[in-house]
């Protein structure tokens, strides 16, 4: 069957059953514009129809939660009238189709999610995953994504202060591009995505609407990839950071002056979403006149106007007496604006175009009546095989293994990436890229916001529940080393095709793992994003949840620990429950043996809490604290040596304890006798000094080699 012969709803990505639901809801045949709106709003990307039932499992409540999941961003209370807004989103599929614009518009979208809440965006992170860099296509994608993040983030004027990078063959046909944004605001500036009472005026702000990105949510983000993906290029939007910068400043001025009742950004599903969601939330209706929308293409149809995903647009809901003031602010910041609608009683979203009513539907039905799927789940048979297969022992000299790990692009220096990002703007970046967690100060206060984001597709492939839980604990430890206590979590759940029972099982397990860990640490999930259909030609990616964790240090340590503060004669201690040698899912297993087998050590909530609390206190007293993760103890010590420009002698030479990535471990470096650690939770493993890193009796590496190997890991591949 050719595409043209398909009925409209199928061409819009709707199933026959979903079409039937619309018929039942309206008790008539939907008009084309109505069908267009339902198709985007009920897409997987917008409606979470396959995941919603599972996401209810997340713990979402805590006394400091101001806004939980469901709004544009989660918001928590930092005390003294300060709030923080945090949000994470994926832009995986657009970034494969067009890496620069895909990543750039991902940044633009996440910023709007945050400044929609009334917050000034103060920092960005990105979590990006690609296939191995020996493939030129992967280098092209990696370079394009990094350039896109830099091009948009730098120009829009929000620093990109960190993130993470992973390479694995499973991402070759389906890179992952997640972006996370943090904003801060005073409590009185909090703004929600609600339409306000009847009579409120809808003002569309920002860039003119064109045909770009039509069906992005339904067609591109909610389907799998095949050889025809490149033909979807017209569904990718094009970003303009300059317009976004002006839009941010204009909106922030409107919030400050109390001019708006609510604001909704136009991202996925464009006007369809920005009209129906705010009206639905407020329990009101909305009359919209599409002829008032400022456009940059001629003869756009009503469905096109409603589905367009043109970037850098916001819908402000403005009390009628303040409309002139809002238009004035837009004029001053040199952005376009148009009055496009009025809030009504009764709950109907009525859309007019060229004098005709093109849609008349219950506003709330677009968001609230979306299908809810309870998709079948099945534990994959191969998990038992993986767990039962003994891992090969690590061959070779540990010093050699360490060098191979430092040369790995996921472990080596990220300077090639982060030096392309402005990570210093706003003068708040106390600890920036290349460390465990970022530390962002709030000037004029004693507070520091610590943020870490962590994912590990390999671990989650072997055990999605334990692997996902360990991400939460690792992120919590990463903020603890800056002196912060964990406050809240956002997650970006990147998975394969949900129509496969094994993928749905992985998803459910992952949600369970994140939930259990959050409960153990008494922190809520305040928002998230689900990206399904990350598969190429029938092969799913590893389950790759990414956990973003916000911590608060109040007060912030006067001299926060840094990897660069180690000095001659200091002792190196490992904190955590005893040394282990489990290498399942580790970087060493991948780099040395090129395998992924075994059962990773499950997390231990009690030990996690102990280590986090101990670390948190130490952050105010010791010069160096470093989470033990990718590459294990050996890499953790090597990173301290490289950052501090000094060698070390480590009294461990067995590959197991050196390279195991078992959870809840951190190294502390301090002058002898300055700190007393509990003997059941900590042991000395070495001493700082000299100009080589010596691993027991198993060899040594001079500092210069160590540094050069680490520094060149990415550049030498990108040069190739």
């Amino acid at each position, binding site marked *: 069957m050719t595409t043209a012969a398909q009925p409209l709803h199928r061409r819009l990505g709707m199933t026959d059953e979903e079409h039937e639901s619309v018929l039942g809801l309206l008790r008539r045949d939907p008009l084309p514009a109505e069908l267009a709106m339902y198709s985007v709003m009920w897409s997987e990307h917008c409606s979470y129809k396959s995941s919603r039932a599972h996401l209810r499992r997340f713990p979402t409540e805590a006394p400091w939660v101001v806004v939980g999941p469901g709004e544009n961003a989660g918001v928590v209370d930092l005390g003294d009238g300060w709030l923080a807004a945090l949000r994470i989103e994926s832009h995986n599929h657009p970034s494969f189709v067009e890496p620069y614009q895909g990543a750039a518009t991902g940044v633009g979208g996440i910023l709007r999610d945050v400044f929609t809440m009334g917050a000034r965006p103060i920092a960005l992170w990105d979590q990006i995953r690609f296939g191995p860099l020996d493939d030129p296509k992967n280098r092209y994608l990696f370079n394009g994504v990094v350039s896109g993040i830099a091009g948009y983030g*730098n120009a829009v004027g929000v620093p990109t202060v960190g993130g993470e990078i992973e390479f694995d063959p499973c991402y070759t046909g389906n890179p992952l591009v997640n972006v996370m944004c943090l904003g801060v605001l005073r409590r009185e500036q909090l703004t929600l995505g609600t339409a306000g009472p009847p009579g409120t005026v809808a003002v569309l702000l920002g860039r003119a609407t064109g045909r770009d990105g039509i069906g992005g949510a339904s067609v591109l983000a909610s389907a799998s990839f095949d050889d025809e993906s490149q033909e979807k290029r017209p569904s990718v939007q094009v970003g303009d950071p300059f317009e976004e910068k002006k839009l941010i400043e204009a909106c922030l001025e409107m919030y400050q002056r109390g001019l708006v009742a609510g604001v909704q950004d136009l991202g996925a599903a464009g006007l369809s979403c920005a009209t129906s969601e705010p009206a639905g939330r407020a329990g009101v209706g909305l009359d919209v006149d599409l002829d008032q929308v400022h456009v940059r293409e001629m003869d756009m149809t009503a469905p096109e106007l409603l589905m367009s995903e043109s970037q850098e647009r916001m819908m402000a809901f403005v009390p009628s007496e303040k409309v002139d003031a809002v238009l004035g602010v837009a004029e001053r910041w040199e952005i376009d604006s148009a009055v496009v609608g009025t809030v009504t009683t009764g709950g109907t979203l009525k859309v007019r175009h060229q004098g005709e009513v093109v849609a008349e539907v219950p506003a709330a039905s677009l968001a609230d009546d979306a299908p809810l799927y309870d998709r079948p789940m099945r534990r994959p048979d191969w998990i038992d095989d993986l767990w039962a297969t003994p891992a090969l022992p690590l061959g070779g000299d540990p010093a050699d293994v360490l060098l191979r790990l430092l040369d790995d692009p996921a472990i080596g220096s990220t300077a090639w990436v982060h030096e392309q990002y402005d990570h*210093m703007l706003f*003068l708040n970046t106390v600890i920036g890229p290349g460390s465990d967690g970022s530390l962002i100060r709030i000037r004029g206060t004693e507070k520091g916001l610590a943020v870490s984001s962590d994912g590990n597709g390999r671990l989650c492939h072997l055990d999605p529940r334990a692997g996902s839980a360990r991400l939460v604990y690792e992120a919590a430890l990463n903020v603890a080393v800056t002196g912060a206590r964990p406050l809240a979590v956002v997650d970006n759940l990147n998975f394969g095709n949900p129509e496969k029972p094994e993928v749905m099982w992985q998803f459910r397990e992952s949600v369970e793992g994140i939930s259990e860990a959050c409960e153990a640490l008494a922190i809520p999930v305040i928002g998230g994003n689900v990206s399904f259909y990350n598969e190429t030609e029938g092969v799913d990616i590893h389950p790759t949840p990414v956990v973003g964790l916000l911590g608060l240090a109040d007060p912030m340590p006067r001299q926060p620990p840094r990897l660069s503060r180690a000095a001659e004669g200091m002792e190196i201690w490992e904190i955590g429950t005893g040394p282990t040698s489990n290498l399942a899912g580790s970087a060493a297993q991948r780099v040395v043996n090129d395998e992924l087998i075994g059962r990773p050590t499950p997390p231990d909530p009690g030990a996690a809490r102990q280590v986090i609390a101990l670390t948190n206190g130490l952050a105010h007293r010791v010069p160096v604290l470093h989470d033990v993760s990718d590459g294990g103890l050996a890499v953790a010590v090597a990173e301290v040596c490289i950052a501090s420009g000094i060698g070390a002698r480590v009294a461990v030479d067995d590959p197991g304890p050196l390279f195991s990535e078992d959870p809840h471990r951190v190294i502390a470096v301090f002058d002898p006798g300055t700190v007393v650690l509990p003997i059941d939770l900590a042991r000395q493993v070495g001493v700082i000094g000299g100009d080589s890193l010596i691993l027991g009796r198993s060899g040594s590496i001079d500092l210069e080699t160590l540094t050069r190997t680490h520094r060149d890991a990415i550049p030498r591949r990108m040069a190739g």
Partner: protein
Amino acid sequence: MRTAVVVFPGTNCEMDVAHAITALGGETELVWHRHEDLSNFDGVILPGGFAHGDYLRTGAIARFSPVMDEVGRMAAEGRPVLGICNGFQILCEAGLLPGALIANRDLAFICRFVDLEVTDTDTVLTRSTELGQRIRIPLNSYEGNWVDPSNSGRVALRYLDDPNGSQQRAAAVANDGGNVVGVMPHPERGIDELLGSGDGRALLEGFLHSLVPA
């Protein structure tokens, strides 16, 4: 003594500059680019960012913003005029400084600390430093590569290494009078040891000491 910090649409370092100047005891006001009167100010700073989106060419549109006539007047009167990063690019485009800034040699954005050496102390930026003094502040630009076919600029600060291909390794350039200076790295990002360096203070203090009542 008041310093105008000019804000073009797309400027993004204005708050950082204002904070730094204030922290050093100066007084600033943010001035929108359509402003046509700077007679109440004793000096002016064009901060970093992407004025008018840097579309067409960095600084190419900004030089036509209404405020630039006043910036030109202040420059001609010998008042301190400082362009940082994008501001440096705009001053070159406006003809207030020689040369132009083109893409970095490696065609990549560079954001990192760089080490500089003072090569001329007779400018409003460097008058509180000593010849040969080492200064460590962050560089943050894509078009940071200064070229000057006329060879007429006075290089006030020079990179110790060569991050971007800039002619004479120039990081800061002054006009003949020394009152108009463009600097590519960001002194305002170097006023706090907690963030990596306090070396930028000496530069901005030099600027503040150069202010005389209008």
